[in-house]
């Protein structure tokens, strides 16, 4: 496939996750939903099921309002809405981590709102670095394994986990490399970049890696398009068509990101150390950092954003704040400070999954472009 064909393929998958899910189900695969921000996907994969990202969607909310008050983020609201309306029918279970207050509460609602899809909690420690934290992560994984067994009838095998870890590490490496390659190719639009990241949630990682590798190769052979203004994005999600469209219209190019649904997913590999593969996976969580839902007394994430923006040559940082996401809202003032200290302009726009009118965002982004 050439560059355009590959980009079209990513688009197809990103735009229609339900079709992807149907295909997997038709082929006899079990599908297990994975909620934001991190779940032990490798375990699900190793048991032979398809981990399927469930980060909500840009839809209207009706049913979710019977469970959530209005001030819970729209990612959780729309995830529940899709669940209630049957959009995930066929899935064997949903794994929801305990990483923020809204994630803690959605599981409780899910049990009653979507009883047909079992809720599997993944309770992560925030004190994840010391040995006792690693032991608790492992206990959480063991519980997920046991619940998955019940929900899918599939069994766990540590050697199979070893193979899945390789698949995931290879995918991480491909995604990290892709960011650099895309930075050198301004002709790939921000909307297309978003499709590549988004599609990763709806495909088996080995299939996604293959496409990403093909794209890297194809772009390597292609000539770079005319330069645009390089920026960095940060936030939980940044996949709204309305938003990426404005960035494209404004001649801005995302050259690196700290978006939870994008690069943050691929920052940490499972290490080689560890007695069993499950131990290795617990060490992966220990090693994870620089994320608003992971305890960080030093607030290193905020400094890292400034440093990354600088290193990638981004002229400014666009903070895409998901409304009612307090992990991100608490970090914003410190991100701003860290960027100010480095002389990097920062603009914040608030988004949610029900946004239809992007005019305010457009004005803010145009102003942002003009100062870069």
């Amino acid at each position: 496939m050439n560059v355009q064909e590959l980009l079209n393929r990513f688009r197809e998958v990103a735009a229609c996750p339900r079709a992807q899910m149907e295909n997997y189900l038709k082929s006899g695969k079990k599908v297990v939903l994975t909620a934001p921000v991190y779940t032990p996907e490798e375990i699900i994969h190793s048991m032979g099921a398809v981990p399927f990202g469930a980060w909500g969607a840009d839809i209207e909310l009706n049913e979710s309002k019977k469970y959530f008050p209005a001030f819970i983020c729209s990612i959780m609201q729309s995830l529940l809405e899709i669940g209630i309306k049957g959009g995930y029918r066929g899935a064997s279970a949903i794994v929801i981590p305990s990483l923020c207050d809204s994630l803690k509460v959605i599981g409780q609602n899910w049990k009653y709102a979507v009883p047909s899809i079992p809720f599997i909690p993944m309770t992560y420690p925030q004190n994840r670095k010391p040995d006792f934290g690693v032991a608790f992560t492992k206990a959480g994984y063991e519980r997920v394994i046991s619940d998955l067994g019940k929900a899918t009838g599939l069994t766990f095998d540590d050697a199979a986990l070893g193979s899945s870890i390789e698949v995931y590490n290879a995918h991480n490496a491909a995604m990290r490399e892709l960011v650099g390659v895309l930075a050198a190719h301004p002709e790939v639009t921000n909307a297309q970049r978003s499709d590549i990241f988004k599609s990763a949630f709806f495909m088996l990682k080995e299939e996604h890696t293959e496409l990403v590798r093909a794209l890297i190769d194809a772009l390597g052979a292609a000539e770079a398009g005319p330069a645009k203004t390089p920026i960095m994005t940060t936030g939980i999600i940044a996949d709204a068509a309305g938003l990426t469209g404005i960035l494209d219209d404004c001649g801005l190019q995302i050259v690196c990101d700290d978006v939870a649904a994008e690069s943050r997913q691929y920052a940490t590999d499972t290490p080689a150390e560890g007695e069993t593969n499950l131990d290795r996976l617990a060490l992966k969580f220990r090693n994870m950092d620089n994320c608003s839902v992971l305890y960080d007394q030093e607030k290193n994430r905020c400094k890292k954003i400034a440093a990354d923006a600088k290193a990638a040559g981004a002229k400014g940082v666009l903070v895409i704040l998901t409304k009612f996401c307090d992990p991100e809202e608490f970090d914003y003032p410190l991100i701003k400070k860290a960027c100010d200290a480095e002389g990097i302009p920062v603009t914040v726009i608030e988004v949610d999954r029900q946004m239809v009118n992007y005019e305010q965002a457009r004005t803010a982004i145009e102003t942002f472009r003009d100062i870069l």
Partner: protein
Amino acid sequence: MAETTTKPRRQPPDPNSAKYKLGKIADDAYASAAAAKARGEMIGWCASNFPVEIPETLGLAVVYPENQAAGIAARGGGVTMCEEAESEGYSNDICAYARISLAYAKLKEAPVEPNVPMPDFVLCCNNICNCMIKWYENLSKELNIPMFIIDIPFNPDYEVSEAQIAYVRAQFWDVIHGLEKLTGKKWSDEKYKEVMEISGRTSRAWLAATACAKYTPSPFNGFDLLNHMAVMVTARGKKEAAEAMEILLKEYEQNHVEGKSTFRAEEKYRIMFEGIACWPWLRVTSTGLKGRGINMVTTIYADAFGFVYKDFDDMCRAYCNVPNAINLEHARDKRVKLCKDNSVEGLLVHTNRSCKLWSGFMPEMSRQIGEACDIPVVSFDGDQADARNFSEAQYDTRVQGLTEIMDTRKEAK
């Protein structure tokens, strides 16, 4: 989550009364922290549900930013402080306690009392919310002081697992050793045992006092509990607290015998109140009930601070079982029991914009409580400290609605 405030008093209260003694304990906490600071000791800011046994046993003075924020909000300073935090870039969607506290960390003073000494370390425990972690991270970073955390995850199961106890126990010791190193204070098992015993005594008295709501009419106005619980949260391990709570129990029992109550109206209806008080609107919310003869006889706080445990592991378990750390079924059953034990006729739910965890599964849980107890459930929108997020008119309409349903049901009986 837990907090209180002492309202300006109209008449000088009896110094032998529980009310006076409890108020004094709460006030003394600030004074003794200030005195410790003046002596050159290190003092901490501490999350409300952080194990008080740790600073108490180590002999460390701490103050509670949630209490402080509630106090500031009750005295009308909440909005000014919130706006200060917002000018720093904090979203107005963030918990108002956190906004007030972060503003205080910057200004080092508030337009109203209580002012508190600046901390040398912060003690964080997220058994009530993860918002707490983010808030304390920022305090620690902005003030450039160490942060100690005991991470107590939300428990999706009914019982606390052994893995969770092991994780929490290890963190207790980690924090104890860290604090010893930082402050030079020493942990003493003997002192801990004493604190544990006193805490048990205070808790038993609290449970018994709040259980006096089983009498009809109730010998107390449930709004009392909102004021007294600060002592339960922060000073359970102090002898004076045990004594004051025992006096409180005696007073309530005495009230019952004499047919008296601190609810100064005819008790026509008995409800459970769910959520944190709206501190800036305390009088409005309280009068809205009292004016209709509604006594809020119980809240989850009645159960929540019964910290009776037999050993260290059991203490860890108790901290894993605080209201915002337990699953819907466990949280529901505790409330159903309170409603049934205390002949509750209606549930009034505060949908608190500040608190995602507390409000996040409240609609479903309160539906289930309503069904299990066969009582009406009504909710109103508010905020525990940001006065802007409350509408007096809506509150009044909702409470009126609840009254009417309770009335109809009474007539049908």
